[in-house]
Each structure stands twice: as C-alpha cells, then as structure tokens.
C-alpha cells in the first residue's frame, strides 16, 4: 500500500486509569508484591525457621485456638503446625522470585537468540530455529523435569538445597525461551528490513550496535506482553512441578509446594491448607494475566 504518511496517530487506546479491571489487577499485584517483600515484617511467624514450629499446632483451624498449645492462627496452621498466613507470605516470595527470575532468564535468552536470528538471518537463524524446534518437542514441564533431574544429579550433594530454587529457575527459564525468541525474531526481521536500520548501517554503525540500540528497543513491547503472561505461566508451572514432586523444597515452600501439600487434605476437612494458598496463587496469576491482557490490547494498534 502506498498510504502517504498520515499525520499523527489515531487514539492511543485506553490508559491504565480508564480501565478499572487493569487498575484493580495492578492494585492486587502491587499488594501481593509488597506483601512478599515485606513478608519478614508482616508475617507473625517465620515459617522457614523449623525451630519455631510446634508440631502440636498441626491442623489448627483458622481463627481457632489450638487445644494443646493455645496458639491462634488467622488462616489456620498446616500439617507441620506452620502458620498458613506466614507460609503464604513467604511462599509468595519464593513463587514471585522463581517466576520473575525464570522469566528474566527466558527473556534474556530468548531475546538475545531471537535478535541474533532475526538480524543476522542465514545459518544463525536456521540453527536457532532448529534449536527452538527441538526445545518445543520437549514441552515445558518435560524440560523442567529433565533439567531438574540432571541438576540434582550433578550438583554436589551438600549444595542441593540451596540449589533447588536456582535449578527451578533454570528449569523453567530454559523451557520458556522459545516464545520470546520467536516473537523477537519475527519483530527483529521486520525491524531489520526497515529503512532506519539501513540508515544506521550507512551511518557506520556496527552490527551489534544496530541490534542493541536500534532494533532491541523496538521489539521490546511484545516482549513485555510475553513476559507478563510468561510470569503467570511460570508461577503455575512451578506449582505443577511441585505437584509432580520436583519443586521448591518443603522446608522452604513456594505457593506451589503449599498447594501440593494442601491438596492431600481436600477430602479430610482441613480445607484451609489448600484453599488459602490456592486463592493467593489464583489472585496472583489472575492479576498478572489481566495486566498482560491489558498491555497486549494497549500495545496492539489493531484493537484500539
């Protein structure tokens, strides 16, 4: 099409303030993140310090006093006598940390590979996309399971516990880079064919400089969308891995680990062990997803 450069753009879509759903989810997300950051201050107990646990508090219902110890728990206590509220706060911390780091890792990997593939093309592109194919053949949870297994096998036994979280990040991060790479590759190919890139080449810019300074900033908006949705997904994947028994260690539970523990008490009447962490996970993932949705709509000119 030969559309002559039309003056100015049409409306830039709704701003955050005009969409109550997005605003609400931002509020929820901010609240959860703050709660996670402030967990050590907010939590009545330190659920990661086993010395403070009293097993006899196990299964205390919400807002009731334990008949043996007399302790009161807002959201009840779990099978180990751990305060569910505190566990959720700390679990949130781990879930968010794992999710964000995994997404950061995936984004870094995917964006770099996608940028190289899209800008350089040729065999770099071919190789990267074949690697992506291989990666896709192993769906995310399988990759994560394999990496988890390998990492457990090769990390020195003494460091396993500290490693668990990092391994989890690695596993989820490594299994999630493909969407980033694909989108960035596509966008980079489009951008690389744009005239401003040619102009930069004529200005004497080197390849890396063009990739980093010109193309990268222009491919970041879809990355942002994928990253938000990826964050929600990473948090859920972490929970699923925990369900399959290869998540965060039970002594330092993430939301997923809490849910895994809790789901065995679904039929036995101790609903709070499952319900509160699950509700928190739902709220977190929902908020992130809603925000991602809003971002996508906002960044997509078609939907304006």
């Amino acid at each position, binding site marked *: 099409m030969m559309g002559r450069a039309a003056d100015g753009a049409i409306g830039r879509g709704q701003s955050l303030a005009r969409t109550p759903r997005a605003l609400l989810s931002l509020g929820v997300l901010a609240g959860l993140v703050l709660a996670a950051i402030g967990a050590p201050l907010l939590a009545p107990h330190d659920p990661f310090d086993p010395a403070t646990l009293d097993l006899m508090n196990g299964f205390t219902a919400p807002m009731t006093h334990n008949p043996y110890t007399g302790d009161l728990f807002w959201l009840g206590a779990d099978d180990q006598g751990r305060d569910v509220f505190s566990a959720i706060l700390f679990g949130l911390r781990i879930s968010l940390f794992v999710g964000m780091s995994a997404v950061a890792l995936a984004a870094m990997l995917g964006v770099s590979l996608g940028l190289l593939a899209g800008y350089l093309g040729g065999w770099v592109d071919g190789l990267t996309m074949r690697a992506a*194919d*291989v990666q896709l053949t*192993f*769906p995310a949870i*399988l990759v994560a399971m394999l990496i988890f297994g*390998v990492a457990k096998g090769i990390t020195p036994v003494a460091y396993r516990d500290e490693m668990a979280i990092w391994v989890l990040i690695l596993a989820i991060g490594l299994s999630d880079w493909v969407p980033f790479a694909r989108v960035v590759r596509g966008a980079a190919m489009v951008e690389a064919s744009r005239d401003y890139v040619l102009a930069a080449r004529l200005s004497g810019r080197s390849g890396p400089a063009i990739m980093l300074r010109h193309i990268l900033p222009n491919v970041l908006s879809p990355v942002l969308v994928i990253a938000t949705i990826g964050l929600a997904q990473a948090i859920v994947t972490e929970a699923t891995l925990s369900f*399959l028994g290869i998540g965060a260690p039970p002594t330092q539970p993430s939301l997923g680990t809490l849910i895994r523990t809790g789901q065995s008490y*679904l039929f036995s009447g101790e609903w709070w062990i499952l319900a509160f962490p699950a509700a928190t996970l739902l709220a977190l993932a929902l908020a992130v997803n809603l925000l991602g*949705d809003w971002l996508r709509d906002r960044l997509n000119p*078609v939907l304006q």
Partner: protein
Amino acid sequence: MRAHLIRRVLQSGLVLLVVGFVAFSMFRFVGDPVDNMLGPERTQADIARLRTDLGLDRPIPVQYARYLAQAVQGNLGVSYRLGRPVADILAERAPATLELAAVSGLLALVGGVALGVLTAIRRGGIATGVLMTLSLVGVSLPTFLIGIGLIYVFAICLGWLPSFGRGDTVQIGGWTTGLLTASGRRALILPALTLGLYQMTLIMRLVRSQMLEVLSHDHIRFARARGLPEWRVLFRHALQNALVPVITVAGLQLGSIIAFAIVTETVFQWPGLGLMFINAIRFVDIPVMAAYLMLISAMFVAINLLVDLLYLFIDPRLRPAQQRSGG
C-alpha cells in the same frame, strides 16, 4: 518437491536423534535403575552382573547407539519395571492417551474457536467480559488443581461422573477404545475437560485477537461494501482468515496436550502414556522414559509437518504458483 519432502523428513529425523541422545544422557542423572530392580536381598555381585547384562557399564554413546540400532528394528528395549518389551507397553498405553488427547484437543479447538468468535464479535459485551475473565482463571490455576476440583465437585459432591480410570473399554484390533461404551464416555469427560480447558482458553484468546485483527482488514470492508450478509462476512471471510495462524498454535498445543497428559493422567489414574512416564521416572525405567520422549518428539515432529502441509492446503499464498499471471 519430493526431494524437499525427503529433506524435511530427514531434518526431522535429525531432530529426533538429538532429542533421543539428550534424553538418553540426561536419564543417567535421574538415578540408577539397578538399585530398584533388585530386591533388598541382593549382593554387590548381583548388581555387577545385572549392570553387565543391561549394558549399563558401557559409555553412554555406545549404549545410545545400541539402543538406536535396536529401535529401528522396532525393539525399544525392555521395561526395567514391568519386564515387558517397551514397544508393547507403548502400544497398549497409547490408545488411552491418544483418545484423551484427541477428545480434549477437539474440545479445545471447537470450544476455543466458538468462544473466540463470540467474544470477538460481541466485543465489549458483559458476557464477553465474563468469558474473558473466566478464561484467565482457567490459565491461572494449575491443571492438577482443576482436576482435583472437578473430581471433588462432579464425582464426590454431585456423584455424576466417575473419578478415575477409563471405564469399560472395547478392543478393536490392537486398539482399546473407551469411546464405544457409555461408562467409557462418562469416564472421559472430566479428564478431557481438565486437559482441554487450558488449551481451550489459549485458543479462544488467540482466535479472538485474530478475529479482531482480520475484521479490521480491507477485504472485510470490501466484502461489506459488496453487500454480503454479515454472517457470511464473519464466518466465511473473517473466520477463515483468522484461523490460519491458529493452526500453528493449535498444532503446538496438541503437542503440549500430550505432554500435559502427564499431570491429568496422574490425577485421574488414566491408564495412558503419561502415567506410564511418571511411573518410569519414579522407577528410573530408562527404556520406557527414552521411548516415551522419542515418541512425544516423533508425534510433535509429525504434527509440525502436518501443520505445514495443512498451511499449504489452506493458504494458497504459500503454494508455489502454478501459473503466474501475465499477458
């Protein structure tokens, strides 16, 4: 054309080889099968003997080469846990998973497309808002939780549907199907729903955004300007174009449906490949794990190939021009 098809298949074969090798070497870290194969009353000598019997004392590439050599002859080795040829086990388990995957895939596709179209053309409606939010709930909850929740509501509280297994099955040739019996169909509902829900919401959201995009295209405007009825514009012109990119995603999703079956099958005790794989991991049953991964990769590669061909069928722009116009 034939040459390209062959090249493509060879490429896929290479992918499979790499996948196989990666998988094969990774399994060595999961654990030592010998430990689980011998009972508590075994001796060091027993262990050494078994290790030699199984060829586990050789270097990994040698083991892999041996494995491949046998695999091409249809011999995928023998399960350490069940002591039966892996090929037989796969053949037995595959129908359950494939039926489950097919039904949930169909559910995801039909439901996803229908809801996607609905939410796209009723943009801004209340029902759309509710559906969009619900769809987010669907992707925000882990599958296993949805499965357990469904069991709790529909099996335990309401007692409408069975909570586990495949129900009665019928043997047709080498294929066991649960689709022909009432109890088999009933048993399929909850697992298929659990497995398909996530994919359905993904497809729905994709269809919606594609529809919205296509609806803004010029050819839709032109179709309206020619006075075509609205349903024809929406369903013939817009939907058809919107579905083209959906094919790729749906193909990828079908691959991940099979992988996600691991979780669903665990929850519903669905006697398929995923359950077999989880058991194999617990038992470090390397031949089963390797075969499963190869099978998944093979399916995936096949699906990809199929999607590519489907594209050619659907999108004439990708076909090599038969007759380039000219004068």
